[in-house]
Each structure stands twice: as C-alpha cells, then as structure tokens.
C-alpha cells in the first residue's frame, strides 16, 4: 500500500465509504473520490541493491480483495476540479478495527476487512430483545478492542422492550458481570431517552465506532443521540427476529457535542483478525493477572492442563464460565 506522506496532495479524512466511492472531508467540504490504482497494488521491490534510488519494482500484485481505504483513514487526495477527486495515499493508521472476511467455501483463504481506522474507542451495541443479545459476539468485539489497546463501551439498546419483564433480571446480571470485569455497560432506549445523556458524555471528544449485529438499533441510537440526522432505520423481521441490514455502508458523523462516531452495517459474524491464540488470554482482562501462574507456566493452554490457574478461577467463581467458554471457543477457532 502506498503510504507516501511526502506527496503534495491535500490531506483529508474519509468519512463515508460506498462501493467504489470514498467521501473525503477537508475544511468542511466533502469531496467524492475514487482511489488511485497504485493503492490497490502490492509492489515487490528488488533486494539486490536496497540502496539504489529510485527503488526498482520487481513485480506488482493487484489486490482485488482488500479495500485499502477505510472510514476514519487520513488520506491524501487530489481534487480533479469537476467535483470529484482521487485518493493518492493513505497516511499511516494509529489503529484499525478489522475482522476476518467470510469465505465463500471451506478451505478458502480469508482476508482482512478493515471496519474503521484511527479510533479512540469501540462501542459494542446489543439489543435487550429483538434480536436477543449474543454475549459470545460481544466477547469477540471486546477481544478485538483489547488487541488494539482500545477502551470498549457496551451499550444495550431497546431497554424499553424488557423493562419490568422477566428478562430484565438476566440483563442486569449480564451487565453486572461485564461491569465487574471493568467494561462500562449502558442501558439505553431511543424511545424514552434512557441513558442517552450518559452515552453523550462517554462519546464526547472521541472517535468511536458502533459495531453490532444487524437490527440492534445502532442507527436508531445515532438518530436519538443527534436529532436531525434522519438516517434510515427499519424494524426487525417479525418472523425471524433478525435485522434487515438497513445500513449498507460505513459513515462517520461529527457530533454536535464533540467527537465523531462511525456507524457501520450490522454483521452476523465477527471473526478475529491478527489475534494470536497463544496470547488470547491477555485480551481477557480478568484472566490477565493469572497468566503465567499455572502449573505449566506460560505453556498452559488453559484447556485441560492440570493446575491451570484460570480454570481454577472459573471453578471458584472468580471468572464467569460464559467468558471462559468464549475464550475456549475463540482459541479453538484461531
């Protein structure tokens, strides 16, 4: 990928991405851009004489799978003068949240799908009901954020659907379990405005990304947070209880109260990318202090080994068995 920061082209931030078009914000103006084909090429340089200037390209591979530009990227672009532009370089990213791509068939090679770049925090959004929250999916988001060293916030939407009902107790128990680990959990409702002020405070002055399943109310939450956006939302399917993939592209919105938020399309799967199975326990904060204290030290896989401190902590009730199960499932998958 070309990350030449010496280019004379203008810098800007990618705030929206649709298929083939990137919207770059610079000085309050938004310019739709394409990207230079150079960004889609991976160059292999000759190593025979690394000091030679200019470096000689030995071969070029056209990368058709991975999108080199993500929402949140700081790019250099050239204004064509006809209302369009071309992105010529992507500046080095502070961080990037990525997932493993779905594969069309078993055995096919997955690739990296960057969801957003240059983030300050990850906001994992789940619905209290319709669709039912998937705590294992939440653990995936949290592990991904931990691997990037980013703080996470858990937001549970549609609380009005379960308030006063039987599920409320389960929801409080789950929220308590995550708060005990150290993750802030906010119960919100776009209908009656519950928890929105608290959420605004947490989002202010930061670049956040909203991630979650389709139909959990990410865009609805955004509409409630900043009235006037008028983003398209849709009810979940009554028969299946699943979302309808209403948001189809990623977009960054500048918030009136400071900061920015990136709305993303809902996903049904979130495969971890660039997370090593050997160090997975490091990304579970409640397991971190126990790493290395097992009978087999750092060699322990925390699966069936005798004298495992993490398994012991689960048995004692110090670690949630559901979190441990998530750990085991993720480890098997990596």
């Amino acid at each position: 990928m070309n990350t030449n920061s010496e280019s004379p082209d203008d810098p800007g931030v990618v705030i929206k991405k649709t298929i083939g078009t990137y919207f770059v914000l610079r000085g309050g103006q938004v310019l739709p851009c394409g990207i230079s084909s150079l960004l889609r090429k991976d160059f292999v340089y000759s190593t025979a004489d690394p000091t030679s200037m200019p470096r000689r390209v030995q071969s070029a591979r056209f990368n058709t799978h991975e999108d080199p530009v993500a929402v949140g990227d700081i790019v250099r672009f050239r204004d064509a003068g006809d209302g369009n532009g071309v992105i010529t370089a992507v500046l080095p990213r502070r961080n990037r949240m990525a997932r493993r791509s779905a594969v069309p068939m078993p055995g096919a090679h997955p690739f990296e799908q960057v969801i957003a770049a240059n983030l300050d925090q990850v906001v994992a959004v789940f619905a209290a009901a319709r669709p039912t929250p998937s705590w294992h999916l939440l653990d995936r988001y949290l592990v991904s954020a931990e691997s990037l060293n980013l703080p996470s916030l858990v937001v549970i939407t549609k609380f009005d659907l379960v308030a006063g009902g039987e599920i409320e107790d389960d929801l409080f128990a789950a929220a308590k379990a995550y708060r005990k680990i150290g993750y802030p959990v906010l119960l919100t409702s776009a209908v009656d405005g519950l928890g929105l002020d608290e959420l605004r405070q947490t989002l202010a002055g930061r670049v956040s990304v909203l991630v979650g399943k389709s139909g959990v109310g990410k865009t609805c939450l955004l509409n409630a947070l900043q009235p006037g956006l008028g983003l398209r939302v849709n009810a979940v399917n009554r028969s299946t209880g699943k979302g309808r993939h209403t948001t189809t592209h990623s977009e960054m919105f500048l918030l009136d109260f400071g900061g920015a938020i990136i709305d993303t399309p809902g996903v049904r799967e979130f495969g971890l990318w660039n997370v090593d199975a050997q160090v997975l326990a490091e990304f579970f904060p409640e397991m971190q202090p126990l790493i290395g204290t097992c009978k087999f030290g750092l060699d322990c896989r925390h699966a069936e080994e005798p004298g495992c401190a993490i398994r012991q902590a689960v048995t004692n009730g110090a670690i949630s068995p559901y979190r441990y199960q998530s750990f085991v499932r993720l480890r098997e998958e990596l």
Partner: protein
Amino acid sequence: MKPRLAYGYPSTRVRRDGDFQCIHCHNLVPSAAAWAGVQHRNHCPYCLWSRHVDLYWAGDRLSACKAGMWPVGLTAKQRVDRYGRSIPGELMLIHACVECNGVAINRIAADDHVAILLEIFQRSQDLDRRLVNQLQAGGIAVLDAAEASLVQARLLGTK
C-alpha cells in the same frame, strides 16, 4: 445468578463431539446412538466413569473443572402413574466429581456394563454418610439394599 437458557448464551445447543477416550480407563467410546441407545453419551460404558464438563444444564459444556466423575451409585427417576401415585421410573447413574464434588445424574446407556452397574450398586451400600446426605440434600436418593429387586428387574428384566 443462573441465567435463562434462551437469553443470549450459546449453550442452548448441545454440541455433538463424536467419539471420545475415557478419562479413567482410556478406552475409545463410540458416541453413536446405535451403540449407546441414547442420543447423548455422557459416560464410559466400560468403567462407567464420566467427566465434569457441564455446569448448569446437560450439554452446556460450561464447566471448567473437566475432572473425572466416579460412579457413586444408582437412583431411580420418580414418575407418576395413572392414579397419581409416585413410582420409581428409569434407573439412573449418579456421578460425583473427584475434584470439585459436583454431582450429576445420567441415564444408563444400552451398552453399559451390567456387571459393573451391579457392582456399583453393591458398593453404594457402604457409601460415606456425608456424601449420602449431600446427595439427599440435592434431592437424589441413592438406592439401598431394599431396592435390590428393582435394580435386578431394571437391568436384567423380569421373568
């Protein structure tokens, strides 16, 4: 707090892990229902040991203990006949974890070793009183010598 099964946890599905090796006698155990006569094989048919892998519900695979579970004794599932009387039903095997004292009751499979089942029943007559009390507190009544004919009938049939 034990959450409801349907509320967002992945443990609602019982995963079929296939054949396994017994943690106690190391025999390879086939899991196919054609052999076991039950859909969910949960103990070795040769030594009747089990493994502590479930925590709240059968098949949730939430236990981190994973130690062996020894066959403590036999119990009978209680059922109600057509006149509303409580009568002993299916014979069940009681397992206790060797590490954390967790207890489970499991269905006897078609290919379970009958001689060992009878041996377990005999041995259970001399169980430690504390363990019997612990089981009773959990609502599990170990079959005693008075129910020997019931055990015989369930395992070997009636003439």
